């Protein structure tokens, strides 16, 4: 690969400013989410099922004569049922799907804002700010890459910026696809602000060309895949942690206690989705990312074969990505095994994410191996 020209200092500088700006905007989004949770605590909680039932009735009533309509009952894990009504208009073939829940135990909370309008407004502001932050962030990562005309993930600073960006994009992607995940906003913005803060303060490196070891198109493939995995694994981690919290809260409620775990306000937990919803979400994300993580490791092995002559040498980075893979594999198996699913499987998911984090920060900083060029400074 020919030596790229050099460094466009203006672009590199612009990139730094954009990253700082993005950080500031994320910080504001984080505060807005905090307001959302605070205001929401005054609102009433969990009226959704009746709300939805009314919606279903409305749809049923307004459907013209001759419309095809089916109501499906779905049993949920907790023993309750959900119904899903599908109405197809005779002429257009358009369908309307409504669902309502029959079981009070498994009901999803209303979200951070509860029924408070102020809280809802704060939440909307937070999302707008997150989108703005993401745009600045994309600009920052792009200009960083353009300033040296290469993929902007050659060291830990660049990798952290990209990792934070994929976390935000994964979250915004879920929102756009209509998933009710606004409750993820606070954990996401907190993580992103922390990651970026660490990146600009401790891990910062000037924009430069790469050492020869990184002159490979596998950089784009292997590292991009790793970054995407990181963002998604984090989202799944947040969901898992909240699942455990909610599950604990549910058990406390069953025991007749009035507060959440660690004396937290019950209203926080009420506003979160049902434990089973959280559990399912974290499983889905993890299951979605697991093949990609497998691919990341294999792409790394192929690159290692080209660079070092052996595709697997138990380099610390390789070892820890293997450990991470195995623990996630344990989680996926446990989730499908009687006696392990639920809480035990969730602990495995937390452990797997801890391995992923250690592989990133721990191995890069404390252990020297062949991946050391990705290190700090």
């Amino acid at each position, binding site marked *: 690969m020919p030596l790229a020209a050099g460094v466009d200092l203006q672009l590199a500088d612009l990139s730094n400013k954009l990253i700082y700006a993005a950080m500031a905007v994320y910080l504001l989004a984080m505060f807005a989410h905090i307001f959302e949770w605070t205001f929401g605590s005054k609102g009433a909680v969990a009226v959704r099922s009746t709300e939805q039932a009314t919606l279903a009735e409305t749809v049923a009533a307004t459907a013209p004569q001759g419309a095809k309509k089916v109501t499906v009952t779905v049993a949920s894990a907790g023993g309750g049922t959900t119904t899903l009504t599908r109405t197809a208009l005779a002429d257009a073939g358009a369908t309307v799907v409504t669902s309502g829940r029959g079981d009070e135990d498994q009901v999803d909370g209303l979200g951070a804002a509860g029924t408070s309008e102020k809280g809802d407004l704060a939440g909307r502001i937070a999302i707008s700010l997150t989108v703005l932050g993401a745009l600045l962030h994309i600009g920052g990562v792009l200009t960083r890459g353009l300033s040296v005309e290469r993929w902007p993930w050659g060291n830990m600073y660049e990798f952290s910026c990209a990792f934070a960006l994929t976390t935000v994009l994964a979250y915004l992607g879920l929102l756009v696809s209509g998933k009710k995940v606004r409750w993820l906003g606070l954990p996401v913005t907190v993580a992103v602000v922390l990651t970026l803060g660490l990146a600009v303060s401790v891990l910062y490196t000037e924009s430069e060309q790469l050492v020869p070891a990184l002159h490979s198109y596998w950089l784009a493939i292997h590292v991009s895949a790793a970054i995407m995995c990181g963002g998604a694994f984090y989202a799944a981690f947040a969901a898992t942690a909240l699942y455990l919290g909610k599950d604990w809260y549910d058990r406390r409620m069953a025991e007749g206690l009035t507060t959440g775990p660690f004396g937290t306000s019950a209203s926080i937990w009420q506003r979160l989705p049902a434990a089973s919803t959280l559990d*399912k979400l974290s499983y889905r994300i993890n*299951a979605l990312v697991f093949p990609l993580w497998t691919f990341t490791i294999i792409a790394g092995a192929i690159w290692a074969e080209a660079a070092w002559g052996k595709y697997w040498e138990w380099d610390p980075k390789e070892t820890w990505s293997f450990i991470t893979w195995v623990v996630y594999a344990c989680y996926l198996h446990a989730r499908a095994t009687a006696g392990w699913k639920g809480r035990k499987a969730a602990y495995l998911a937390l452990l797997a994410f801890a391995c992923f984090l250690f592989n990133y920060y721990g191995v890069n900083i404390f252990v020297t191996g062949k991946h050391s060029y990705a290190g700090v400074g």
Partner: protein
Amino acid sequence: MSDTRTRPEDELSAERLSSAPTESDSPAGIGVLGWLRWTWRQLTSMRVALILLFLLSVAAIPGSLIPQNSQNSFKVETWKAAHKGITPVYEKLQLFDVYSSVWFSAIYLLLFISLAGCIIPRTWQFVGVLRAQPPAAPGNLTRMPVYAAWHSAADAKAVNAAAYQHLKRRGFRANLGNGAVASEKGYLREVGNLLFHFSLFALVAGFGWAGLASGQGGKLVIEGQGYSNTTTQLDDFTGSALYTSEDLDSFGFKLDGFTAKYQTSGDQMGSARQFTAHIRYWTGDDNTKLTKGDIEVNHPLEIGGSKVFLIGHGYAPVVTVRKADGTKVYSGPTAFLPQDGNLTSTGVIKVNDYGEKDGAKTQLGLNGFFLPTAAPNFEKTGPVSLFPDTADPALVLSAWAGDLRTNAGTPQNVYQLDTKGMTQLKVNGQPAIVKLKPGQGWTLPDNYGSVTFEGYQQWASFTVSHRPGNAVALTGAVCGILGLIGSLFVQRRRIWVRATATADGRTLVEVAGLARSESAKIAEELAEIAVDLQDEAPALDDEAPAFDEAPEDKPEHPADQDSKE
């Protein structure tokens, strides 16, 4: 809906959605055979497999924290020297060779036996499932996790036939019979699952083959010099059972030049930006037909069954040594080893054939530093280089005379001077040290002659690697990913449709589905099928269907239907 069949029947059918083995905790019968059977059943159970998998990840940890012989035996020696007390314990526990240790091997061998014991019966079972028809509709469809029903005026038989067609069109394997349609889809889930686990065996086979039949050697070549792939020319060689030093692929190459470029500004100044070795190579015995080639980091060159990797590079100062009477006793480049990122390099020039001085046989040893960009003065820093490229090269030398002990019989490090039999040359009682620029000479004290620093050349070090089995491992890996995608993203589900004539002359259409609980889509799919089916079996408007039919019979569903993968 006056069916009185009991739950176990339905659950049985639910269980068959997956061909996973059943678990049993109950101890075995009697005798050795019983115990063996019990052990085998335990080993192949999901719980033990999970524990083994988890153990494997834990067992991999020490290897990432303790230096490993397989990676850097030099680091292992340093570590051992620093931790003398604990070293024997670590050696007993094979902690310097974790990944080839008995305990690590035991874990993955058990894991693979467990896997085989699980996967092979499961494959046969799956073949059986493929050969059989989809399981017939359970008697009481309302017990299924997803359920819909309505009354229609259409003929029951016609509705069943229409349902069969709808399901077929949607890619379900369907079977029409006995007043109901049974159908199943998503077999790729199990195919993917089995494929993934089988490809793990392919991966391990690739690993194993590589371990048995691969070899790797290292060679340092100075610009202008050549190399042919024989054991005498290699600096070191690690072979294996099926690839020894006698099996080395026959080829060779000449290093014509080496290009290195470095960052010249900013906080990463001195970082390498490009390394390229320019070579001409030949294969077989004919070393006259030369082909040009470049080797870069990440871009090895495949020559005659081996791959040649660029591993490192450095400088080789060219030095001429003359005796006091002017006879040349040494001339040529000597490779010096880099000590830091700016290529401060150290090395030794051993003048074996100095001959006699003052009637006694003697030898000379020059201990030195090569500095590509020498610091202006060394008073505080010592001899160091400030930049890896040769902006201001200098050679710093001190000289020893006496016996080099190169013929002592023990292997000697070519980069170090054994000073046991030697005395350092001194001026006024102080060790004689000189800093030379290219072209400069140094007259040695005590009439030992002179040393001229003619210039320098670069050298490159290569790894020559012969590794079969890569294709097998890669195929295994790719199949593994495909299998994973199938087993994680495809949902296996069953849908049953049953249209029955009721006593009042209407037709009750029931649609029920069964899938793993992770899948929310089955309700959607079932609704779509039901809506489609209403073309042939329009719902009668006079009622809110389904639930009136058997309200007290309502779901005490087989919630655990996904209890096994």
